[in-house]
């Protein structure tokens, strides 16, 4: 079989793996965003215990390798809670990138000037309404570029699912390249699929940035 034939023949199988990658990534992205926002709010809560907990969380999950975290989630907890392979990778991605994203949110929220709070207060807005309707929309807009860095990382890091026995794009590519002894072309093919997936995220980012341009 020529390399070109192999690349074509292997495409359906790779795309099946890519579907799993997409599924993992979508859940990872959504949960990491939610967790990141929650942790950012806790970090800014002025409640000492919550601040302390959130900084411990960020310090640990940003400061240790995702691979090690995955091993701990998948094997370390096996006798306590048996996460399925799929759950393990989604939890791992959520905890790991939630830490990065919480810092992006925190920075963006802090970057909104105090005057906004004061102006809202003078108009009689409650602080919670000020946060949800005034501060957060502006912070979100400022946080988009750095959050999208993390989201693209989520897609790429989903390849680590292969070490906890999830069959996704990278592990399928491994299987095809070892069965066919054609390594580099298959890996390049897989890389192009990853690129296509992250390009979709790029497009969403451009769209959001255009949409929020009115605020300039």
């Amino acid at each position, binding site marked *: 079989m020529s390399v070109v034939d*192999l690349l074509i*023949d*292997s495409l359906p*199988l790779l795309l099946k793996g890519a579907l799993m990658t997409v599924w993992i990534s979508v*859940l990872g992205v*959504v*949960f990491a965003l*939610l*967790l990141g926002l*929650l942790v950012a*709010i*806790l970090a*800014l*809560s*002025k*409640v000492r215990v919550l601040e302390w907990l959130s900084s411990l969380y960020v310090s640990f999950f940003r400061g240790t390798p995702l691979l090690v975290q995955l*091993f701990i989630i*998948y*094997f370390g907890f*096996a*006798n306590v809670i*048996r*996460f*399925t*392979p*799929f*759950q393990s990778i*989604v*939890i791992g991605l959520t905890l790991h990138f939630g830490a990065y994203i919480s810092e992006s949110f925190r920075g963006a*929220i*802090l970057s*909104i*000037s*105090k005057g906004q*709070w*004061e102006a809202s*207060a003078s108009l009689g807005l*409650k*602080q*919670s309404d*000020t*946060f*949800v309707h005034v*501060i957060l929309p502006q912070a979100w807009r400022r946080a988009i570029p750095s959050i999208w860095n993390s989201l693209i990382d989520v897609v790429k890091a989903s390849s680590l699912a*292969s*070490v*906890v*026995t*999830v*069959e996704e794009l990278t*592990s399928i590519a*491994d*299987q*095809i*390249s*070892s*069965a*066919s*002894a054609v*390594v580099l072309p298959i890996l390049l093919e897989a890389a192009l699929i990853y690129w296509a997936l992250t390009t979709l995220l790029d497009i969403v980012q451009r769209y959001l940035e255009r949409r929020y341009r009115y605020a300039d």
Partner: protein
Amino acid sequence: MVKPNLIIGKLTRSQFIRLLMLASGSAVVLAACGSNSSDTSSDSPTASTGQPLTVGTEGTYPPFSFRDLQSNELTGYDIDIATEVAKRLGRPIELVPTQWKSMLASLDARRFDFVANQVSVTPEREQQYAFSQPYTVSGAVILVSQDNPKNIQSANDLKGKVVGTTQGSNFAEAAQEAGAEVKYYQGIAQVLTDLQQNRVDAALNDRLYVLSELKEANYRVKSVGEPFTRETTAFAFRKDNTELRDQVNQALDEIKQDGTLANISNKWFGEDVSR
């Protein structure tokens, strides 16, 4: 004057509770998502008849365990034998593709019932795991690139050389005993790719792999010298699961006696490698 970072205190209680519910709702969704994943290893060591026999295997190690690119199914020598054993036990088989790096840890964590992946029987492993009777007899051979710049001809020549092998494989130990510096790779394909570019001086791998695969693949590498270890491979079980191990041994006895095992071996290697 209002502090901008006084947020939680100013979220109303109901808003805070809604946030928490959002988070816990997410966790429930996650739990639901995973429920159909391949986590079916039986918790009880004596799984009853009819439950699937779950088997850990790499799926990246031809011809023992690999994905057939025509049928898209996992197949190979080890998988054929495990499938036949499951048939004799009257149980369906479920293959769990697992990287070698996490294979034994997955076995420990009860992610599957046993490993069918050319696991070599070593004294160290026998302390940790229960092995079936062997179904392969083989040994490690040395591979070098076609031009063999370091002129390696036997195990004695490996001293001080860089030898590539896969993570956690027992070939690494053999290489270290020969005095070589070991470089680890994810899979044999990466080892051979680097070997043909002379980034490592030699590689160690199974004689059977070399027999069956190397001539088909177009790596510019060759084997030198005689096999310098005698190795047997067997299915690996948890120590607390000797009951299943004994059942599997009986099934292996059966397929040895009625010639099925020899047939499987001939199909993949053109000779009986099971004894």
